[in-house]
Structures are given as structure tokens and as C-alpha cells.
């Protein structure tokens, strides 16, 4: 006998099933379209000349082709440092806790092989506890926690540059702060952000002074800037300047909406082959963008590189202090490709995989600190939030 509850449940299942089917269909459709558009770009990748695009200075794209082959570095005698950080946070009643740890893995390559590995400051450094007593709201606390993690990474990276040296310094993530215009101007948040800007500038300065290339590898980029440039500045020129088939022209003409709603990596996954990179483009070209970084704001560039066949392209960002973005990009791409190509379905620099493993914090680390505070305060002091004290 079917009960009322069963009927509701069955109805719910049908609805979920329909939604899943719709999602799958949508993904397939979008992918097919992206694939068709990318195929046209792929076909023309060697004949598209983007050097003379009608755009105002400063130009968004600094190279003349959309796609370049990357020659992997032979790693004969190269030192690559990778910096990553781990962070855990816990909100308590009247106090918030942040635990951060940053580690640098420094890989010395000789004759194409990893020969020596150093760590800075140590293999597994002690995490740093940061208490936050200001009454931040949940979003502000999350921002502060993330900024503290990044701050730890940047300060450590600067120490590595000054103390150890390397040919290339890779950060796990972007080489610019990601919080512009995203937070309210709370005192604590603003202060942390200011510190972060100082830390970025210090790092850029230190790298420039030591002649160390600094780049960031963004694992799961959500960026859309490349497609934005493509859509606004390249697409029309392509249609006008190339002899396309009728179907291809209509595909490109109808592509604007799709490209506007796609992430760079989703599209470039079809456009790039393993061992190729996109052209270098400026990180931002809006007048006020990266203004906090002052002179460095205009020296930040990015490109995408597909290091392995079955993984999305990797976004690489770098600072070019000498005004030679192509040359710098080639060097960065060559190193990143050489140390990211070993796993067909996971294209991330090995030095960052190692740094990530060293920096990762486990929940138990935070529990120990939390329990120590509670122990010292005594059982009568209520610290845990209600959501963590449910009676059932």
C-alpha cells in the first residue's frame, strides 16, 4: 500500500530526475557549441594575426598570435620554489580563531630530474594562531581569514626570495589580491587588506631586485577575461578578415552569448592542445583596476597553458618588471609546462603539489587549540556557537 509519504517522495524523485536531465542536456549543448567555436579558432590559429587589432593603448593582448607552442624546459639546472598556504578558521562566541601555515618547497633540478628538495622555513612548520576579537560578520571573517592565509604566503615568499633564491617563484593562486571592491570597509578588513597590498609590493620588489621570476598558478580559475577580449576584440576581425565557410560564420556570429557566459578554461580546453598556451594578455585594462598595486598594477599579465591532454588549461599569472611580457611568459610557460606534464589528467606544477601537501592543515590542529582554550577557561564559559552545541 502506498502511503502519503511515499507519494511525496516519489514525486520529489521525479522532479530531481528531470532537473538532472536538464542539467546534463544543457552541459552537453553548451560544450558542443564551445567545441564548434573552438574548432574554428583552432583551424585558423596560425593565420589569425592579432597584432593590428583596432584597440586603444594600452593593448589587452601583447602578442600577435592567439596560440603558441610551448617548449618544456629541460630542467638541466633550475631551481623552482613553490609557495602555498593552509588555513582553518572557527567562529566562537565572542572570539574567532584563524590558523594559518605557509610553506615553500624548493625544487632543485639537475639533468632533468629533481635532485634536491629544500623547505622553508621547515618541512612542516608550526601553524600560526590568529585570534580575531573584533565583532566581524560572517562574510568579513571569511575575508579576513583568507587574507591572513595569503598574507602568510606572501611574507614567506618574500623571505624565500631574500634567503634562498630561485630561478622561478610559483605562488599557488593569483599574483594579485582578489578582494578589490568585494568587502565593506570594516576597520579590521581594511587594515588586513592594506597589509596584503604591502606584502604583494614587497614581494614584487624583492623578486625584481633578485631577478627572480614570480608567477602564480591558478588551479581552478573562474576568469572570463580572455573570452571577453576574444569576444570584444578578435571575433569581429576574424569574421571580416578570413574566408570562413558559411556555417562557420554563422556559428561565430551566434557565439557571443555563449562566450559571454563561459569561463576561459571551459572554452580553452577545446581550443588548446596539450603543450600549447594562449597569448599573453594584461591582467586588467580598466583604468582603476589594480590601482592599489601602484606601478605594479600595469605589470601583471596572464595566459593559459594546457599542460596535459585530459585536464583543463591552467591559468598562469606573472609580474613582468622589465617590459618584456612575451619573453617572461615564454620562460614561465616553459618551466610550468616542464613540471606539470607528468600526469595526463592533472596538470599542476609538481612543486605546488608538494607545497600544498606540506601546508595543508587538518581539523585536529584547530580542535587542539580550541580545546586548550576551553580547558583553561573552564567548563562554565560558553564559547561554542549554538550550532555546534546541538543537544540532539
Amino acid at each position: 500500500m502506498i502511503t502519503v509519504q511515499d507519494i511525496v517522495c516519489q514525486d520529489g524523485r521525479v522532479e530531481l530526475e528531470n532537473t538532472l536531465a536538464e542539467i546534463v542536456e544543457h552541459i552537453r549543448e553548451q560544450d558542443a557549441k564551445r567545441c564548434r567555436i573552438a574548432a574554428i579558432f583552432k583551424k585558423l590559429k596560425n593565420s589569425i594575426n592579432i597584432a593590428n587589432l583596432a584597440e586603444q593603448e594600452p593593448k589587452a593582448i601583447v602578442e600577435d598570435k592567439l596560440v603558441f607552442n610551448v617548449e618544456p624546459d629541460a630542467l638541466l639546472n633550475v631551481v623552482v620554489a613553490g609557495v602555498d598556504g593552509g588555513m582553518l578558521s572557527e567562529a566562537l562566541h565572542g572570539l574567532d580563531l584563524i590558523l594559518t601555515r605557509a610553506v615553500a618547497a624548493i625544487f632543485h633540478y639537475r639533468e632533468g630530474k629533481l635532485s634536491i628538495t629544500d623547505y622553508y622555513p621547515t618541512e612542516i612548520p608550526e601553524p600560526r594562531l590568529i585570534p580575531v576579537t573584533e565583532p566581524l560578520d560572517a562574510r568579513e571573517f571569511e575575508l579576513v581569514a583568507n587574507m591572513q592565509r595569503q598574507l602568510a604566503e606572501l611574507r614567506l615568499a618574500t623571505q624565500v626570495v631574500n634567503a634562498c633564491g630561485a630561478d622561478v617563484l610559483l605562488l599557488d593562486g593569483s599574483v594579485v589580491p582578489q578582494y578589490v571592491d568585494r568587502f565593506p570597509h570594516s576597520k579590521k578588513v581594511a587594515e588586513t587588506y592594506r597589509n596584503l597590498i604591502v606584502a604583494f609590493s614587497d614581494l614584487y620588489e624583492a623578486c625584481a631586485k633578485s631577478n627572480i621570476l614570480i608567477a602564480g598558478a591558478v588551479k581552478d580559475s573562474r576568469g572570463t577575461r580572455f573570452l571577453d577580449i576574444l569576444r570584444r576584440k578578435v571575433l569581429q576581425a576574424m569574421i571580416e578578415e578570413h574566408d570562413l565557410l558559411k556555417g562557420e560564420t554563422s556559428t561565430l556570429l551566434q557565439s557571443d552569448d555563449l562566450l559571454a557566459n563561459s569561463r576561459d578554461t571551459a572554452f580553452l580546453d577545446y581550443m588548446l592542445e596539450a603543450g600549447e598556451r594562449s597569448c599573453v594578455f594584461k591582467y586588467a585594462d580598466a583604468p582603476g583596476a589594480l590601482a592599489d598595486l601602484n606601478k605594479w598594477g600595469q605589470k601583471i599579465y596572464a595566459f593559459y597553458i594546457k599542460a596535459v591532454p585530459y585536464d583543463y588549461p591552467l591559468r598562469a599569472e606573472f609580474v613582468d618588471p622589465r617590459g618584456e611580457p612575451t619573453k617572461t611568459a615564454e620562460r614561465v610557460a616553459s618551466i610550468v609546462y616542464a613540471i606539470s606534464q607528468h600526469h595526463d589528467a592533472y596538470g599542476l606544477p609538481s612543486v605546488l603539489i608538494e607545497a600544498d601537501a606540506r601546508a595543508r592543515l587538518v581539523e585536529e590542529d584547530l580542535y587542539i587549540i580550541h580545546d586548550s582554550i576551553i580547558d583553561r577557561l573552564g567548563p562554565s564559559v560558553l564559547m561554542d556557537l549554538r550550532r555546534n552545541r546541538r543537544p540532539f
Partner: protein
Amino acid sequence: MEVGTVITTFEGPSPSGFSFVVTCNGREIPVRRGQFVELETEEGKAIASVVNVIKTNRYFMRAESVKEYERSGKTLTSIFPADRWEYIIADARIVGIQTGGGLERTTFPPSPGQKVYEAEPETLARFLGLNPDGGVELGKLRHHELPVKLDLTKLLRKHVAILGMSGSGKSFGTHVVIEELLERAREKGRVGVVIVDVHGEYSSLAEGGGADYSDHVTVVRGRDLQIGVPNLSAHQFREFLPDMSEVQARELQRVLDELHREMHSGKGPFGLDEVIERVEKNGEIHKQLQQALLGWLFGLKSLGIFERADNPNWASAVEPGEALIVDLSDIISLRKKQILIAYAARRLFNARKNLRAPPFVLCLEEAHQFCPEGTAISKGVIETMAREGRKFYASLVLISQRPVRLSTTVLSQANTNIILRVTNPYDLEHIKQSSECITGDVAEMISSLPVGEALIVGEAVNHPIFVKIRKRRSRESAHGMSLEEAAREFELRSSRAREDAKAFM
């Protein structure tokens, strides 16, 4: 030396065991399975045995990733610093707490973070109940530089079983025990040793080429062994002839009594021929009974071991600190061997009970031939010795490659087991059941023991230990020759015989 730090796992630390992350300190193999470690606990210094050692490395945890990264032909270690992620975790079982009064069980767990150290030799010797000053040294404790010197009383107060498959080193181990007994100083207390040598392996003790024990060793060949008929009662005849009836035994005893009287009146000792003659001439015995009795006696006579006097004289054959090797290698008949050993054992045991013989050890090679689970002429007396020998310091050392065929009564009385490699599952199971100290883990280790290593369990040690048996001091017997050598030697001997025959013709 520090070997690690106690860590928290789902199971522990608990009062019975803990795991620890191993500190390498530059050593390639910092800790081994079976090694003893020590650590401080609230209850005192605890001794633990490492029961397992596990290596872990996060870079090698996912098969598909390892395969993928190494597909290019590069090793994972040339891409990542994988070796830096290798951790060694050891599981240890707490054996006990060393206290003034001896060994006590732990009732409280050690703390996570507690440092674990290699067990100190002195602590270990005390904990294991060894006797560093005057013990019987069998070898070194495996994974430790500790000489295993077993306390003589603990070892031989009851009985010892030396078990292991063929070629595992039983005889070698027995030689070591015997050497130790022969080398003991008078003031340390010496026992006599009688070795029943089925394969003629022990005669080398009396030969040169190594440490010379010839002054302390006497060898009696099987063909020279004699049973003095005057020393036998009808009951003992019945032991050799289990099917002899009560009535036949009674009639035989009458004849024996008569011959004893004559012997004491000056006629001298008598042999089996006299017994047979007297039975034949005795008109009082029923004809049918007489024929049966004569049948039994002729049967015994055909063995050729019954004479007017014993050889050797068992009561005086055993001396403290000396060994008598009874070499039975030239006797093929199992029955004959059993009769000889049954007689010798009884004579020795009685001599010891009457204090005419010193405390002694009877080493029985291929013990399952003399005291099997089934029937055997010698089984009764050996079982008696196994049960009662403790009171008189008459100890048995049972050496066998088939423990499953050994008498359960005898094996259960062996309070110390020296177990060498055994792979037969039935024998393993039998050994496991005979000692509560042998857990599944230990039994598993028995089957993979290398030659020359032994597990010692029982009264001689407070905890089962693995021992690397020391080298023999005496010369090794020729049984060590290869098949090729034996085959060559046989052909050479045959051709010589043929040539001699030809020359003679």
C-alpha cells in the same frame, strides 16, 4: 636509543598495545618486527614487543596516480620528493611492566607523545628471566645484542621439546645445548647427559676438529648395547612383549625367581638361553602356555640384545658434566630400538630415584619414534619420566620433526619449547595448541623462521623470544655433505669393491 614516539590510532594506545611513529636517526632499519622496546608509563617501565612495522607514503597511496606519473618512464621520486613523505609506523604489544616483584600486566595505557626506546639489554635480561651469570647460552636474542642465557633450573626442572621440520637446525640446536651442559663448571652445578642418537649425528662431539669434548663424551654403538637378563622382571618382559598374557608373565616370573635364587647362591648371572631352557624343562607349566612363552622368548632372543649383563652399566654410565651417546644408527629395527630405550630409560630413571645417578638429561632424537601418540614399547616409561621426572631432576629433551605424532601426554609436560622452522599446518596447529603463549602472529612467524633461528616459549623465558642459535663449538657431523658428494662417494666405494672382487677371482 630512541626509536619513536607513541601516536594515537583508533585502537590505542591501550593497556595492551600502542603504535609509534619510528624515528630513523640515520639508521636504515631503525626497528624490526619482533624487537623489544621500552617506554615509561604511569605504572613503571613497560616492555613491549614490536608485532608489525608498516611503511606509508602519501605519494604512493593511489595506484592510478603512481601509474600515471610513471608512465613517461620517469620515477615518481624524480618528479616529487616522495622519499621525504615516507613514515614508518610500528605496532607494539605491551608485554608487561617490570616491577621489583617481577613482571606485571599493564592496566593503564601509555600516553601519546611518549618516547619509545630500544629495550636495554639488562632490562631485557631481567624481564625475560634470563640468567646472565651461569645460564645455558643458546645464542643471541633476535634483533638485540643480548646473549640468551637460560636459567638451568627453569630450563631443565621440567622437560624441553625441540621441534622443527627436517633441516631446520634441531640437531644443531641440541648440540649447542649439550655443549653448554658439558662446559659448565662444577660450582655452577652440572648434570649428566644421555643422547639417544638415531642417525649417528652426535658422535662428532667426541671427535676433534672443533672444541674437544672427547674427555667428556662416551659413545656406545647400538650393536654393543646389551640388556642384562638378570635385571629384568617378568613385568619388564611384558613391557617388551605387550601381548604377553598375565598368566604367561606369572609363570615367567616364577622361572626368573628360580634363576635369581641360583644366581645369588653363586651360580653366576644367567642369560636368555637359561631362561628358555628352564621354561622348556619346567613340567609344571601347561603345555600350551609353555609353547606361547617360548615363542615370545625366542622372539626376543632373535634380537640379539639380551645377555647376562648390561652394557653399558646404566647406573654408572652417567656422570655430572659428561655425555653418553647411544648411537642407534646401526640398528634398523624400530622395535629393537624401542626395547633398548625403554630399558635404558627405566634403568636410568630408577638409578636417579635411588640417587645412584646424578641429575641427568635424556635427549631423545626423533622422539616420535619412542613416544608416539599411538603405541610403542618405550612410550610407557617415557611418559612416566615426563610425569614424574621433575621430582627427581630427570629431564627429557624431546627432539622431533613431527610434533603432531608425539604423545600429547609427553609434549604437554615439556614446559619449554624450542621451536625451529615448521611449515606443516598440522604440526603448527599442534604446537599452537600445546602452548598458550603461541598466538596466531607467533605461529605465522614460526613458518617463516630462517634455519638456525628458534622460538623459545615456556618456563625458561617469561615471554616468547626468537633466538639466533649460536655457532657450534664442536665439529659438525658429516651429515652436512651434499647429495653430489654422497653419490660420488657411493660410486667410488662400489667400484673399489668390484675391483677387489675381480682381483680376488
